[in-house]
């Protein structure tokens, strides 16, 4: 899951992930290709997950900071 391209946005990662899964499900690929696709899929899913987790974390922090201030 390393080698994440940092410039990849959530949308890019997600779009590619959907594409990878579609290819995997369609079949007709060689074993080596399948493995490469699956690895790429895992990597992309990880990128998306990190984006979402990061967003959630920032949201929680911002909210906590705001509440601290208003309290």
């Amino acid at each position, binding site marked *: 899951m390393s080698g994440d391209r940092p410039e990849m946005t*959530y949308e890019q990662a*997600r779009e590619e*992930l*959907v594409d990878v*899964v579609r290819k*995997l*499900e369609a079949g007709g690929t060689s*074993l080596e290709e*399948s*493995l490469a696709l*699956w690895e790429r*899929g*895992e990597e992309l*899913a990880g990128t*998306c*997950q990190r984006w*979402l987790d990061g*967003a*959630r974390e920032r*949201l929680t922090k911002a*909210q906590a900071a*705001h509440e601290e201030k208003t309290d």
Partner: protein
Amino acid sequence: METSPEAPAAVRTIANGIASWINQLGAVWVEGQLTDVSIGRGTTTVFGTLRDTDADISLRFTCNRRVFETVDVRDGSRVLVHAKPNFFARRGTLALAVSEIRHVGIGELLARIERLKQLLGAEGLFEPYRKKKLPFLPHTIGLICGRDSAAERDVLENAKRRWPAVAFRIEYASVQGPSAAGEVMTALRKLDADESVEVIVIARGGGSLEDLLPFSDEGLIRAVSKTGTPVVSAIGHEPDSPLLDLVADLRASTPTDAAKRIVPDVREELDGVRLLRERGLRAIRSWLDRESHALAAIRSRPALAAPVTDLQRRADEIAALVERNRRTLTHRLDRASDDIAHRLASVRALSPKATLERGYSVLQLADGTAVREVAQVAPGDLLQARVSDGRFAVEVKTEEDK
């Protein structure tokens, strides 16, 4: 009158001369504004100044107290007087001797204001395009009002209630009477010159048409139209509004109304901000939830969640092939064994064993050749005798002929 440094005239001669000349002038009707009126206790004459309403020119006047008190006039009133110029030789002063005094009629005042309104309107001073936009939240508010007036209190209290941090710069001015218009103009200039002042409020409580005359003053109206800072007119609610209302960038009905119009309500604004925050938070939360679910759905698809199945499928394929391979081989082996068994049976069927069991035996030479003819043996040869259950050696004795 002939005079020279050698033959000067006496003061009395000159004074009397001026007096007789002036006293020949007839009575005239004069309109002006009363100021500095002094009514001494127990005196019969009222002194005061009659001031021009536009130019800075004035004349002293005297009036019999009974005449003066026939009308309800006071400092600042606009009056029409019938008066005769009178030179008082004893003090060398000129005064108008007022013989009749009249209030300038309300109708007349209104007509004048109306004429001025037409004139200034024609010049475009009241055009909507000239109105300047008020700042949303002014840095400093310039306030022109009477000292210790209710108008001042109303504006300050209401503005601070809405936005406690609001700042004011206050310039006091008379808000009625002859000097009002001038003082208001001076205050206006000062506030307009102050960079931090972002809006100017001219506030005064309600009053009579006459009280509010300074706020229809031509000079003041022109000054307001030239002011760079937005001006709010906040003159007490009256049916006949002064011209200031028309030229101002915003017309408030009262000083309290002005406060409401120039500063936003802090609670209202904070509520608005809070509402927007909540909406934003909700939107981003639901986006996050939606995307998280979508991602979870993708990740749980077999292609990603159980990549093993693909491998398993391939492994199964291999296992099947191995199995097929194995089965094929076994089959062939089985067939071969069957073949062998048959052949063995055939071999067995052809064996001489049964004959041997019936009591025959086979003699064999040392090289295994079966003995068929006598000629094959000689006495003393050792032969192998094969019987059903084994073999033994025998010796040839003699030849026996048949």
